[in-house]
């Protein structure tokens, strides 16, 4: 069942991202039609054990009763993650008072460099309501697997100057997962497409 959901999400993302890349001028229309990836009749309830910037334990039950926007990325990400977080910050502003019912979570896929303090400084750049979560390598991997996210350290490319020690990029899926107040994975939203459609998707998540 969970593999089915994951496959569905991955397939959706492949299609959506490929379409967005191929026809950037059609973004609003495309996104309005497919703001939420379809989920199966009985959605998965991803389980995770992570920590926030204060060191507090955060699990799938911590924010029960509110919707979660879950994104897997890393703070040293130069383009994709800031782009997604920029849109999330806009989404939160556009939600107005309804944002109180939403918990935006940024889960690092680079726990080696993303210390809790650094992660907090990073997400606050975008919106102080975004919560950065990290954990051990195993905990982060388990969380990503539960949502169907994937990542790995980017391999050096031929011809590219060697980066100094400690500097590397990550390859990763870039989806914002929508989790309902009961902890069920509803699907993914695309705030980069149509903001009204993304707003509607989040507001209808209950």
């Amino acid at each position, binding site marked *: 069942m969970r593999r089915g959901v994951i496959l569905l999400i991955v397939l959706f993302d*492949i299609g959506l991202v490929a379409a967005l890349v191929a026809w950037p001028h059609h973004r609003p229309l495309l996104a309005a039609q497919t703001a939420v990836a379809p989920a199966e009749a009985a959605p998965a309830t991803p389980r995770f054990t992570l920590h926030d910037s204060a060191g507090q334990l955060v699990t799938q039950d911590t924010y029960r009763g509110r919707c979660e926007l879950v994104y897997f990325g890393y703070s040293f990400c130069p383009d994709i993650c*800031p*782009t997604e977080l*920029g849109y999330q910050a806009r989404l939160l502003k556009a939600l107005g008072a309804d944002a109180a019912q939403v918990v935006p979570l940024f889960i690092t896929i680079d726990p080696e460099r993303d210390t809790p303090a650094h992660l907090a*400084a990073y997400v606050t750049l975008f919106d102080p309501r975004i919560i950065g979560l990290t954990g051990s390598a195993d905990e982060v991997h388990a969380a990503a697997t539960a949502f169907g996210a994937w990542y790995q350290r980017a391999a050096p490319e031929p011809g*590219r100057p060697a980066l100094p020690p400690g500097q590397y990029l990550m390859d990763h*899926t870039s989806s914002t997962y929508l989790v309902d107040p009961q902890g069920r994975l509803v699907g993914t939203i695309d705030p980069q497409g149509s903001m009204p459609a993304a707003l509607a998707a989040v507001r209808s998540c209950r």
Partner: protein
Amino acid sequence: MIPRMTPRECSCATILGALLALGLCLSPASGQDQGSAPAGTAVSAVVVARAWARATTSDALSGAIYCELRNPTAHDQALRTASAAVCDHCELHVHRIDAQGVMHMSQVDHLTIPAAGTLLLQPGAIHLMLLGLAHGLTQGQSVRVVLRFDDGTVTVVVPILAAGAMGPDG
């Protein structure tokens, strides 16, 4: 293959470019975007417009620059390299989606600006990446970048906008 420039080389090229820019005040586009070439090199016909960068944390090691590259000539032009004093080296990046839906940033050895056309560098797509930043990128400050095209170079002063900015207007 992009030759690696040491920070000192980056810095020298940029300072020369900056001095020339101040002296000549070349600005065919908007008065802010277009700079000039470092001493001894030609000024490219390519117009660099609406350039911007995002703020990062102070200890960030990398950042991205976006802009419009406008080619008014009747021939394709290629952006070959970029350099900036604020970083160890710059790379030209495009995003590639693999069969599993994973985003990979790939370095390319040039970017083509079509004849009488414009190439858009924007978030989540083509961008100029700064690697090995010394102090991150601070909102309100700017970055001086030298772009080398087939026909010459352009020095651009790039404003650093908010971390969550999505375009040159914020």
